[in-house]
């Protein structure tokens, strides 16, 4: 394959485009998770009692809420991409594979939605006293 036709495939083939987008998304979320994941584990160490009130006040602190939403979004996205690869590797039957991939995506979207709503609820409750 000559150089020009290789470039052509990279830019025109939707399958290759999807693959490089997947690759980049996985790496970018990985970089985010190095940062936000470390922050989360350090936070876990610093908790005193893990009791409800402590957790609510900590999660509801604006800075922590922002960090948690960033951590949560990169986490669900990275997890969804990773499980996609595993499904593609082990589920061979085309219609079942399609079903599993869409189930995986939907589950992660629902989880992300729950996470965002929960964080908003905690913040609003604290804001209203």
């Amino acid at each position, binding site marked *: 394959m000559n150089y020009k036709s290789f470039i052509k495939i990279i830019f025109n083939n939707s399958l290759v485009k999807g693959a490089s987008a997947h690759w980049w998304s996985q790496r970018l979320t990985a*970089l985010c998770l*190095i940062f936000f994941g470390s922050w989360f584990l350090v936070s876990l160490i610093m908790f005193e009692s893990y009791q409800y009130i402590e*957790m609510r006040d900590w999660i509801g602190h604006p800075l922590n809420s922002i960090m948690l939403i960033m951590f*949560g979004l990169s*986490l669900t996205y990275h*997890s969804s991409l990773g*499980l996609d690869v*595993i499904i593609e590797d082990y589920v061979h039957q085309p219609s079942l594979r399609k079903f599993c991939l869409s189930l995986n995506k939907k589950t992660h979207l629902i989880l992300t939605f729950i996470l965002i709503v929960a964080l908003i*609820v905690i913040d609003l*409750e604290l804001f209203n006293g």
Partner: protein
Amino acid sequence: MATRPRPLSPHLTIYRWPITMILSIMHRATGVVLSIGMLVFIAWIATVAFNESGYDFLLLILKSWLGQVTLFLWSFAFFLHFCNGIRHLYWDTGRGFNKDKVELSARLVLLGTTLLTSIFWLIK
């Protein structure tokens, strides 16, 4: 003439597992384990938001010995995926691919995982 099955090339079970292969499998396995752990993370925030008694119940489970063992394994999975993930990002720059370097980085990942998991539980 009896038909004999076609000869197969040697399978995984034939070889002694090289450290690089173990880590490759572990990266995928810990990824799945951490995806399950993500459910607990979301349950943790969701119960704080919607259901105080649900949170107390979650805390009770996580503080039981079975919960603590599970949390320990999750922390191990986290640090292994974390260290090996950094190794993958290093590889993505096109470096570290010869046999010696690949084995050295594998050992570093195992060392790092052990150290980080120990430190985490010692100061927690």
